[in-house]
């Protein structure tokens, strides 16, 4: 598991989930549909990404394809760190 993924899983587990550990979250499970994140949770996630990874998340990137699953978040962050955004991909 990459360090990015570890950080993301830890953030989600620490802040939103009581009954499952950071590693028990399926990478492809929709965080909003499973009730883990609501609209405020998404805002907090965006803040976390900006602060933890130094990556600015523009409004047009706030899409489920970038933020709604652990896999998507990791891919988005890694893409932004290397200068690629979902809009370009």
């Amino acid at each position, binding site marked *: 598991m990459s360090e990015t993924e570890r950080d993301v899983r830890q953030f989600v587990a*620490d*802040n*939103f*989930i*009581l*009954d499952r550990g950071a590693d028990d979250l399926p990478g492809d499970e929709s965080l*909003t*549909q*499973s*009730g883990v*994140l*609501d*609209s*405020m*949770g*998404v805002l907090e996630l965006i803040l976390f990404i900006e602060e933890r990874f130094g990556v600015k998340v523009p*409004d*047009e*990137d*706030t*899409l*489920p394809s970038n*933020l*709604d699953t652990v896999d998507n978040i990791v891919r988005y962050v890694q893409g932004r760190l290397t200068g690629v955004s979902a809009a370009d991909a």
Partner: protein
Amino acid sequence: MKPVVQPRYERLLHDSLARSAAEVPDKEAVVTADERISYRELDERSRALAHGLRERGVKRGDRVAIYLENSATVVVGVYAALRAGAAFMVVNPQTKADKLRYILSDSGAVALLTDGRLARTVAEVADELPSLHTVVLRGRAAVEMPRAIDLDALTAVAPDDAADPGAIPLDLAALVYTSGSTGNPKGVMLSHQNMVFAQQSLCDYLRLGRDDRILDVVPLAFDYGLYQALMSVHLGATLVLEPSFAFPNQVVQRVNEEAVTVLPGVPTVFATLVSMHRHQPLSMPTVRRITNTAAHLPDDHVPLLLEMCPGALVYKMYGLTECKRVCYLEPELALVKPLSVGKAIPGTETFVLDDRGRAVAPGEIGVLHVRGPHVMMGYWNLPDATAHMLKPGPYPGERMLCTHDYFKTDEDGFLYFVGRSDDVIKSRGEKVSPVEVENALSGIPGVREAAVVGVPDELMGQAVRAFVVLEEGADLDERAFRRHCLARLESFMVPRDVVFVSDLPKTASGKVRKRDLVEGV
């Protein structure tokens, strides 16, 4: 299946579906990211499910719960319950086990429609619900559930003819649970008559038509969301259904992809759109109606919304679940009477009364009362709470709704909301009961006692703040506390802030002095 018979009159709530299915069978009824279903499909699926429910013993007057995210299945379930002669209750999918147990037990629901994921929560409480004999599952179950039946299997056989369960307009059509200032939500009882009237009155003043494409991002468990679906079906229009506003940019894209014409929201939604628009201009040119309720829409948002949606009519409205909606401001008056929520919806009237039941003069504050066919029948099994809200009206046996909200009028009779008389918190447009939250908090290991208040917040209206006294030696930090909250409460009820204190300020009789908590911050 026999062709749809168009009813000559619409008396029952599901008559709208029969009529729309007869008139525009191939038109899109419900559109989601995953599916697009026509009126014919909606009609056939709901009839098949109604038949399946009746085969499983659902009878006239029974309650059928729907515990799902916003999806076409919810709309199917609503009309299926009605066609089976039952009343539907849409339960917020964020509801956790304790509250779910309470709602299902209180209502005596006999059947529940849910999906594999949410079935986990149902399984936790099913043993304590002797009335619940049928659980209909969409998709694969995540857990074992003995009384479960697959939705596709149940609806595989289309009925050729369905016996009429014999419901009449006075019968219960829906139970809508709403939080108040006590520890448990209350089931608002709405008859077919209430809801048929309300949907027509709304379509009337919103000036909606068959060509409209109505967005719903609000949970169908709330009447604001539910009525987007009901109105759409009533009109033979198209409902564009989204699960939430968690990804605002996604919603804006959907609005444009689907050429949405009606955009219902609450102030938090509009504040988010305005904020996005200030960063980078948004354009939603197909929107011609913008509606707001739950809290006041700031005046400086209106011109910006009109930049995004040129030519749209903006409706400021006020209502409560107990009568669906009370009043609305004609959009042409949005700038003439900027702080007003307008006048009574068509077919109803309002009175602002003093504590002796007499009408107050313009400019004086009184309590708003509502008279009309939309007023609820009462709260399910709560005669005292019902008596608190329903007061004698002008005619014998008539009951008017007392909102217990403070209002005033101007010289022209326009209504102005002044404030609530209870301590219910309005956060992100949702009602939050401080007592419900406090009860959940005291169940958290390590919490000795807690007090919950609302504090002003620019985005949310009010934010929920908890003051918590921990047990000696309890090791609970903010994040652990929050995780515990999320496991017990719907997310909009979870305190945004927690302040750990050594004790709570109390009166001589031991009641927490909440005003001190709010002001002391």
